[in-house]
């Protein structure tokens, strides 16, 4: 019994850490630019596919491919923002529809090129650790460490650096920030870049642990989206806490009911929380 509890705690933490990365990126761009980027899950898979192509087809070193994959989606995110989101920024719902269409477009494209079978990014580290009788691969431990370190760095960046403070100012009051001489459009692009590399990092870590298919983009979007509304739109800390709630709900459901129940139970949990508290756990009133 203790072993089972320990197993849930350890595995849940890894899964939650990865989703926390993805969700905080989704939440960040919403908080700053009031944009619901439904192509966020696409950035998540794109990094994995780009990295895999670099390693398997071009023969790039693992570590280099890992970094290039993350930078690649950062640039893709900025281009998508500049070309498609920015012209229609004020029509919030059209942004949702257009980014959703982009997500499905890329999904179809990946399906045509790579097919629907799962592929994995070669692990950065090999080997297994034995923690209290539970075997866990090193890559899972590394993923959790990378996730936590990135989130701490993000928090530091937002609250301590000048650019970070400009991002916070823009999210609090766009017009006032503009009047203070902040180049808001530049801040949006920087935020989009950070948001995209968070998704990309999540995707590359995920694809080392689980198999990635083009359809995972929709799954990643649902998870990020669900976590963010659970945590409260625009609240970074809310989304990190919510990802751990969602991560553990999933792992517990898989352990006791089986994998096919996991998404159903997770979505039901979120909807029931929303019925009671529509603004999410830490949401601010609009």
């Amino acid at each position, binding site marked *: 019994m203790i072993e089972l509890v320990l197993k849930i705690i350890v595995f849940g933490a890894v899964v939650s850490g990865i989703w926390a990365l993805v969700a905080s990126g989704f939440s960040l761009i919403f908080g700053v630019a009031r944009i619901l980027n439904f192509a966020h899950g696409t950035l998540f898979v794109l990094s994995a596919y780009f990295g895999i192509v670099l390693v398997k087809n071009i023969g790039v070193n693992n570590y280099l491919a890992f970094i290039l994959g993350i930078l690649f989606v950062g640039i893709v995110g900025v281009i998508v923002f500049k070309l498609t989101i920015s012209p229609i920024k004020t*029509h919030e719902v059209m942004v949702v529809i257009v980014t*959703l*269409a982009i997500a*499905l*477009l890329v999904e*179809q*494209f990946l399906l045509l090129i790579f097919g629907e079978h799962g592929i994995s990014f070669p692990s950065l580290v090999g080997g297994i650790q034995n923690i209290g009788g539970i075997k866990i691969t090193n890559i899972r431990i590394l993923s959790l460490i990378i996730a936590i370190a990135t989130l701490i760095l993000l928090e530091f960046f937002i609250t301590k650096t000048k650019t970070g403070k400009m991002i916070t100012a823009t999210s609090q009051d766009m017009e006032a920030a503009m009047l203070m001489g902040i180049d808001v459009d530049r801040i949006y692009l920087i935020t989009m870049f950070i948001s995209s590399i968070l998704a990309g990092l999540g995707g590359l870590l995920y694809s080392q642990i689980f198999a990635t298919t083009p359809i995972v983009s929709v799954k990643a979007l649902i998870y990020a989206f669900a976590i963010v509304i659970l945590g409260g739109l625009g609240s970074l800390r809310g989304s990190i806490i919510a990802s751990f709630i969602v991560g553990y709900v999933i792992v517990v459901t898989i352990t006791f009911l089986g994998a096919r129940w996991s998404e159903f139970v997770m*979505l039901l949990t979120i909807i029931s929380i929303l*019925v009671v508290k529509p603004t999410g756990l830490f949401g601010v009133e609009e």
Partner: protein
Amino acid sequence: MKAAIYVILVVLAAIAPFFIPEAFVYILGLSFLFIILVVSWDVMVGYTGQVNLGHTVFVGVGAYTAALLQSPVRLQHLLGFTIPKVPIFISIISGGIIAALIGFFIGIITLRLKGYYFALVTAILPLVFMQTVFVWRKVFGGEEGFSIGLENSLSNTILGKYYIALIIMVICVLSMLFIVKSQIGLKFKAIREDEELAESIGIDTTKYKVIAFIVSSFFAGIGGAAIIHYRITVSPDLYDIPLMLLIILSAVIGGLGTIYGPVFGAFIIYLAKNWWLKEILSNLLKIAPIPINDDMILYLMLIVVGILMPQGIYVELKKRSWIAKKSNSSI
């Protein structure tokens, strides 16, 4: 004038099967049922301005309700007791009623709040309903869905199906047109134009939003139920996101809040997807093998239309003609 055009169009639809091959008659019939889905989305989104991203929930619920009513064995797995098979007409109406009931419950919970909330929650809902299909495989048949049997088809012949689909579509569209042209429809529009103003002149905005949502989900359910009786198979694609985007694309191209616009939009987009695009693409791919398929072209269209005309083609054209008129009169 408008009415005359529509009578002519319905007459054209009625004689069309005598001039086109049977395989296309089948697709044309399905496109009529797709029109119901798009127009019912328009009743909610175009008239009250509340963006419903989960319309496929009601399409799917209507479809699975009707399908289960035709498959007593599966229904027994769900309810624990048997219900005798019902006539097709009743199963289609039941599809609408169950969808409307679910719309009512979702509506009273989600429509109390303004802004993003409704769009957000409705965006997750189709995924929840889709998961039920995978969780209770014995009842809903999993990814592949199930067949309700040839004998439960709308008609034995394709021609018969075609005419029944046409009749169902005309009845549904006329009913929805009647509702939005009535006093209730005026209140829907008042909410769309300015929710707070509508509230201040004594309109119970939540009540009318819920009414619009019930109407919208009822007809979506009817559409879904009619579709499965037309094609005799039910599968989770009726809940899925691509269908939602196809509905949005059709309504946006046709013009929101007009009923007529979405009818044309739905007709054109459905035929484009299931008939013209496939042929054009298969010819194109013979010349140049590029990774593209018909879905991708539709998504590209949606992206381009969305960026160039974020308020929809209809509003954009109306605005432009208004500006043109104004500039003419000033000269």
